[in-house]
């Protein structure tokens, strides 16, 4: 313990002054809000710069494309947020998405009359099942989630490949009502984006306002303390992986609706973008902090960068490098900020908390 009772003398004097800067909003929440705000600013700047170079970037069609483009990543990033908050990581989401997308197509192929809500339920359930495999293995083996999900990344993808064995499912194989889901707009806003918004709102609300949601933060913040506090750590972590799988499943179904053309490679390599989105969105890779809103903003930012690169006619090969650099910058920045904040808070504590 390098923390010591540096604050003792002041308190011993017994005249600890009240925190002057306190407002209605909690300090903890305010720290988070700063991150979300800076993301919004970055996003704004990016859009501005791109628009200056090409004013069509902000046309209705283009905004619609952007919203459509980020919806799936947003859903995945929100699912990933749940996992990362508990100090774990789920690398298998891209493969789960691919598997579920193909399963959805196959379902329509083998039972053409299937109403799309059924497909949705089946897809989410299959995703949740994959998540349960992850969660179960992690619980049994007590091995870093990264290793397990790296393994299932390949295993799920392999199953997908094996199943598809080179076949492709085309838009014509799926009912138009389902495909409309992928392109339809309500008041100019794509349905897909609305779904993503609902997911963000629900998870954001859950994480903030429910006991079990707060327990996820507790687990990621200090697993040992979480156990001592009677939090069912194993069960929560398992549930989180199931949820992440279910969201990947949802994303998979939506992927099928949006892209129409499905082969077994759908979603390959997506996991990096998802992790990047969450981390850029302020979900600390050490667990314990971050919000669904931030992760969603991170996903929007990443998608916008991708579109901007295309619009600015920058070599698309830069995109992956940018993703990598953003991950590094985000975790590095988080670290520096965390140290700063800790130092400042220690100062506050020493000068009368």
């Amino acid at each position, binding site marked *: 313990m390098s923390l010591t009772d540096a604050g003792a003398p002041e308190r011993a004097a017994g005249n600890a002054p009240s925190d002057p800067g306190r407002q209605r909003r909690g300090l903890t929440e305010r720290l988070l809000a700063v991150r979300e705000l800076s993301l919004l600013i970055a996003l704004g700047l990016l859009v501005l710069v791109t628009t200056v170079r090409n004013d069509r970037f902000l046309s209705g069609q283009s905004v619609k494309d952007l919203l459509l483009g980020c919806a799936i990543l947003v859903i995945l990033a929100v699912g990933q947020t749940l996992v990362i908050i508990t100090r774990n990581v789920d690398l298998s989401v891209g493969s789960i998405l691919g598997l579920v997308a193909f399963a959805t197509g196959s379902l329509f192929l083998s039972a053409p009359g299937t109403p799309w809500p059924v497909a949705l339920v089946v897809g989410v359930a299959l995703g949740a099942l994959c998540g349960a495999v992850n969660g179960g293995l992690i619980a049994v083996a007590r091995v*870093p989630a990264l290793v*397990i999900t790296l393994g299932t990344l390949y295993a799920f993808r392999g199953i997908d490949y094996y199943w598809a064995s080179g076949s492709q499912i085309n838009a014509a194989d799926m009912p138009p009502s389902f495909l409309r889901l992928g392109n339809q707009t309500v008041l100019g806003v794509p349905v897909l984006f609305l779904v993503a918004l609902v997911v963000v709102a629900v998870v954001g609300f859950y994480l903030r306002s429910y006991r079990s949601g707060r327990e996820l933060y507790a687990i990621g*913040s200090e697993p040992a303390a979480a156990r001592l506090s009677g939090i069912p750590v194993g069960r929560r972590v398992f549930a989180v992986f199931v949820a992440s799988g279910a969201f990947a499943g949802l994303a998979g179904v939506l992927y099928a609706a949006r892209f129409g053309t499905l082969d077994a490679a759908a979603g390959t390599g997506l996991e990096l973008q998802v992790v990047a989105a969450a981390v850029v969105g302020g979900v600390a890779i050490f667990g314990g902090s971050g919000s669904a809103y931030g992760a969603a903003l991170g996903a929007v930012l990443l998608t916008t960068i991708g579109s901007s690169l295309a619009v600015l006619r920058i070599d698309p090969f830069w995109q992956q490098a940018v993703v990598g650099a953003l991950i590094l910058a985000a975790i590095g920045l988080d670290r520096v900020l965390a140290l700063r904040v800790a130092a400042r808070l220690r100062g506050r504590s020493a000068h009368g908390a």
Partner: protein
Amino acid sequence: MAHDSLYAAPPTAEAEPGAGRLASLRGLLGSWDVAVVAALVVAVLVASLTVENFATGRNAQFLLLDLVPLALIALPMTLIVITGEIDLSVASMVGLCSTLMGQLWLSSGLSLELICVLVVLLGAVLGAVNGLFVTGFGLPSLAVTIGTLALYRGLSFVVLGDQAVADFPADWTAAVVRTIPGTSIPVVVVPLLVLAVIFGVVLHATAAGRALYAIGNNDQAATFTGVSVARTKFWLFVVSGAVCGLVGILWTLRYASARGDNATGLELTVVTAVLLGGVSIFGGRGALLGVLAGVLLLGVLRNALQLADVDANALTIVTGTLLIASVVLPNAVADVRARLHRRRQRHPAAS
């Protein structure tokens, strides 16, 4: 130091000072490398008997050629994992080194010898970036190397776009696939063996090797014993980068093609081989011989399955499953043993 336990086992496993559990775990893992070698022997025997064309010199040559990059990267990876870290960016470093080699060859006019030296140095620099983030900023290597996995792969596409550079001198490209006269062992196995011996000696018979195990088991105790944990880890990442530079050269020459997607996904195979070879993902345990056996086992399995016309997609599943199994099995077995052990302790009369 909260992040130290990032992705590590849930605290019960470490907080519980279950010496019995540790002992049985040790007993199991002590024999793990033996088990891997046994599995290797069985795999080779079964494959030789049942798979047509497996037990031929030509096949051995192909097998070894495919395995050399894997084995080379596995050497520093073993050391890194033993210290409790991981380097997931290895394949991307190979890719970036390969494209840079191509770009230099294409446009710099330097001699190939010089380029090779530069590429190895460049690999070391890439590794140093990893090392800096991990030790300088105190970030978990998992997160850092996932970032550099994307970054380096992205940069390797930036360097050459989707172009490939292929006009390397034929005598160089031929040299890489040549076999030792009179045998079907590729000559590239020689540098691999030399490096393996060096890594093996460093790990198992030097002060530095002892320090690696100490770091992986308990970095605090290592610090208190005068081991410079950060510096050691930093240099390991540098070495890993340099070896990846070397592999980048070999890869480029073997396929006579420098391209951005070279060695994509190799990190999974390397990590699988290392874990399969009995190195504990939590650090502190493992031996180089086991890892080499793990590399061979993986290669033999893949090669034999390929020869037996097993679908490539099934191979993907096999690799993923092997990775999971090699981390789940030791823990599961240790768990069962510990449970039995506790039961024995609780009811001494019963036993």
